[in-house]
């Protein structure tokens, strides 16, 4: 489970996350949405111990992110939006490093790496440096590294970025199964169709504050909108997209 208690973070006076409180029980997939710069990644970075809150705190799997950051980190898996990894290592070396950081048994680790690489069809590339990999291949390794130690809470920031349709479908199924196993999944994304499909609950954040929270049906009732796209647009007070698109295409025309 994840519990945010008045979590706040500001940068040079600009409040990125403003007094956010939230409870996500075990086994739930919570979609965390918001426009660019709304505070999604900042929230995730605080929950994963990469940033310290300016005020407030949070419990992850029962451990306080400020008081017991290492205990929190032992129990979480994180797929960052940046997809950062050591590209000069091979997938095997990278996953071995990650497993050892969690003190995994070498035999179990080897077996798991073996399975992951086979499932993701990366087995034949296991000794190749990741620098030569496509974005999708790297993303598969990032996801494997987030799950190899069997975390109970998983933070996913745009996890399907760069993946082909089949792998994306596979991963959506995997996330569903992991939630059924009792894992809590905190899912940040801009792909609303995916969020609508796989998340049990949707939280929308704008300017650092929660502006909507509920299941997709609750949000539909609340906003009188049928699609998540329309709900999102309404609660984040988006401008008229058709108008902007029209103006933009006009500018494109004048440039040629």
């Amino acid at each position, binding site marked *: 489970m994840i519990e945010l208690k008045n979590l706040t973070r500001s*940068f*040079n*006076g*600009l409040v990125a996350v403003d007094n956010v409180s939230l409870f996500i029980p075990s086994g739930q997939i919570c979609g965390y949405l918001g426009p660019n710069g709304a505070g999604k990644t900042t929230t995730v*970075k605080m929950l*994963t*111990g*990469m*940033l*310290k809150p300016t005020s407030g705190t949070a419990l992850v799997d029962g451990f306080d992110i400020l008081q017991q950051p*290492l*205990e929190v*980190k*032992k129990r*979480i898996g*994180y797929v*960052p939006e*940046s997809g*950062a*990894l*050591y590209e*000069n*290592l091979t997938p095997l*070396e990278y996953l*071995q*490093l*990650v497993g*050892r*950081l*969690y*003190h995994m048994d070498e035999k179990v680790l080897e077996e798991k790496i073996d399975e992951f690489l086979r499932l993701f069809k990366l087995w034949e590339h296991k000794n190749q*440096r990741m*620098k*030569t990999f496509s974005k999708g291949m790297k993303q598969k390794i990032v996801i494997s590294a987030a799950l190899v130690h069997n975390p109970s809470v998983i*933070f996913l920031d745009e996890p399907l970025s760069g993946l082909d349709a089949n792998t994306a479908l596979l991963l959506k199924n995997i996330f569903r199964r992991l939630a059924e196993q009792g894992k809590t999944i905190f899912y940040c994304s801009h792909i609303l169709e995916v969020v609508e499909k796989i998340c049990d609950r949707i939280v929308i954040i704008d300017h650092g504050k929660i502006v909507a929270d509920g299941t997709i049906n609750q949000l539909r009732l609340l906003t009188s909108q049928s699609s998540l796209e329309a709900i999102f647009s309404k609660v984040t007070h988006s401008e008229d997209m058709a108008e902007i698109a029209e103006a933009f295409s006009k500018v494109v025309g004048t440039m040629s």
Partner: protein
Amino acid sequence: MPNKLCQLLQIDCLQYRSLLQISLKLDFRSERLRGYRGSEKSKKRAFLFTIVFYLIISLVISLSTFQHLDVGSYAFLILSVSMLFMAMAVVIEFNDIVVNPQDAEILGPRPVSSRTYFWVKMTNLFFYVIVMGASLNLIPAIVGIWTQNSGYHFAAIYFLVSCIANLTTAAFVILLYSFLVRMMNFERFKDILAYVQIVFTFLLFFGYQFLPRVMQHLNGSVTYTSLQAPWNYFVPSMWYASIIMAVFGNISTHVVCLAGLGVVFTVVLFAHSSGKISLEYADMLNKLTTATVSQVESLPRGASLKNSLVKRLLNKIVPDPVECAGYELVSKYLHRDRSLKMRIYPSFAFPFAMIALFIYDGRFTDPFAPGAGFDTFFPLIFFVYVAMFFHFLLPTSDDWQAAWLYWVVPVDSISKIYWGAIKAVILQYVLPYFLAAGILLSTQMPVTHAAAVTVFNFCFFLAYYAFLSLFNTDLPLSKKYERGQSNFRFTLMVIIFPLFVIGIGLEYLIFRHSSLLVFAIGGLLFLSIIFWRISGVRLAKRFSTQEYLT
């Protein structure tokens, strides 16, 4: 690291071993950056180059001084050089080991304690410090056996003390880093690093010029006792030299105080590092990944007028839009990209240091005057050293991956971008330098003579820079910077030093026969144009066969 030591330092042994192993592996893995045939840069080679460079430096210094110095003053001198080089190496080449935002991104969410991570990074850094320190001190340790009042045991004692001194220097730099990162954001921190590098380069070149001047004033020999003064307490290399003196049985109050200061400084520094700094290290790294919010500054009054004038002037100088794009790109990056600034700006220290020293010595003389020597030409001709920096570094950038743009833009000749870049360097960096040098020279000689010297040297610079461009293989800002390139340039400078001497000799001959001056200037300009035309054609041809592979 043995398990007991791990427990003592409160670090996780398995994590420590795994991370250190990977850190060293990554350090020595060459990066294939692009699909250029045969362009794989080797980090191992760069590091080896550094070692050889340090061995040569230490051999020259120790052999040229050991006869004039006693054991204490010799140890002081060599330790000073070693500690300065070490601080410079950590600041310029190895700071990314300790302060690497990518590490925070990858390892931030992993259950690695701040202490474990800190000691991994310190051990990684200390590995280089030990190897580089050995290359700087091994020869002096052996040569030192034959200094006055020395003995065979000097080699072992000196080598051990030098290791401690070098490690302390590196630890001190890290302490400063952690302090700076805590005080400011990463971008500002990189700015500070750039200034520190410039200061270090100044120190190095002033020291290089200053040392022979000091040696000239030495009558016979210098002893440790003759150097005794209150300033000793402010110079760390003197503390460690005093430890050696104490081991050699020189137990005066002064020696004991200085040696004690050295021991206390080392112990306190490492205790503080393993305590407070190691605990806050992870926070420091996480701060590096924190987004920085900068205020948009409004343009000052009159800026728009100035901008429009600059724009009009630019249209005249760089009329081609593709060239103009290259010009704008490079001039903006040279102003804004701190990593690039950090690598290029220190090169200016060398000619500036030369000018300052030559003014100080009163050696700027009118080259047309009877009996004038070579001296006036030295500081100006050495500006070609800056050309080398621009040549090697302009193709590098932290944003090198954006170079895909070169492959997709529909331009008839890609070399136009390169011309724009060259023009940006010359107009914004070279021309102002020579204008300033000309003004400075006019205070030392008639204005027409100062102008002649300045124009000749400016053309010499153009010809040299154009010559270097013949070997250019990359477009501006299109490849990643590899660690070790700074030392490579220093070494190259030492190797090509005789070429400078030949250049100065030729310049002297031309100024002796002033009728040749116009032809010489014309010849240099002609050569520049020819070299640049050839290099442009070569670059465009090479580029047409290259593929963009990341």
